[in-house]
């Protein structure tokens, strides 16, 4: 068994199962925070998938895309949390006005 076969037939299925589990939580997730964290986690597992594929196909240029995905994951988390807090502020102001 070469190392490419080991990665392709054992490591990739483990990562695929973990992606499925995270996607379950993304669908179930009772609050919005759970869904945002699940998205972040999906992108982070995508980085590892890209790393494994770059080993299997012997293409080191795939890692550039992994770097960009890391940047996008952080940006999306920050943007989502910013708009969550902003929405809460608007809701509070509306409540105060109603009172």
């Amino acid at each position: 068994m070469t190392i490419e076969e080991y990665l392709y037939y054992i490591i990739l299925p483990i990562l695929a199962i973990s992606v499925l589990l995270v996607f379950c939580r993304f669908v179930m997730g009772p609050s919005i925070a759970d869904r945002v964290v699940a998205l972040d986690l999906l992108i982070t597992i995508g980085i590892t998938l890209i790393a494994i594929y770059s080993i299997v196909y012997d293409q080191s240029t795939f890692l550039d895309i992994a770097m960009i995905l890391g940047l996008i994951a952080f940006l999306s988390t920050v943007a989502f949390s910013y708009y969550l807090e902003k929405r809460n502020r608007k809701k509070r102001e509306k409540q105060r006005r109603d009172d």
Partner: protein
Amino acid sequence: MTNILIIILSSLGAIFILLAAVGFVRMPDAYLRISVTTKAVTLGVGLILASAAIYFDNLSVTSRVLAIVLFIILTSPVGAHLIGRASYFSGNKLWEKSVTDELDGKYQPNSHRLSSGEEFEDEDEKRKKKIKERDLL
């Protein structure tokens, strides 16, 4: 030799990521879920990227991998803190069996004020009065 090292590192990383995913489904509370994912997934990503760096054995790939790992280690706690803060402010409840809530009673949801618990309510106004009196004298 390098093959064995790659197999060990990638297996450990995959196991950490799988455990993080299982914990993400099983944990009872949004904050516990955030805490699980930030730690275990960061370690798993670091291990698998390290195995890629060992496989290619190349300076450009190693520097790229180091940049990715450093960036993830820097940003994942910040993102977790931000999303946890936003979910606490939006009124997300803690698990009923959690031991402490250190922000309990220190956050007023209708005025969005967060006190540290050290100061008193009127201390700011008292200080302002003192400064005014000193200015008058």
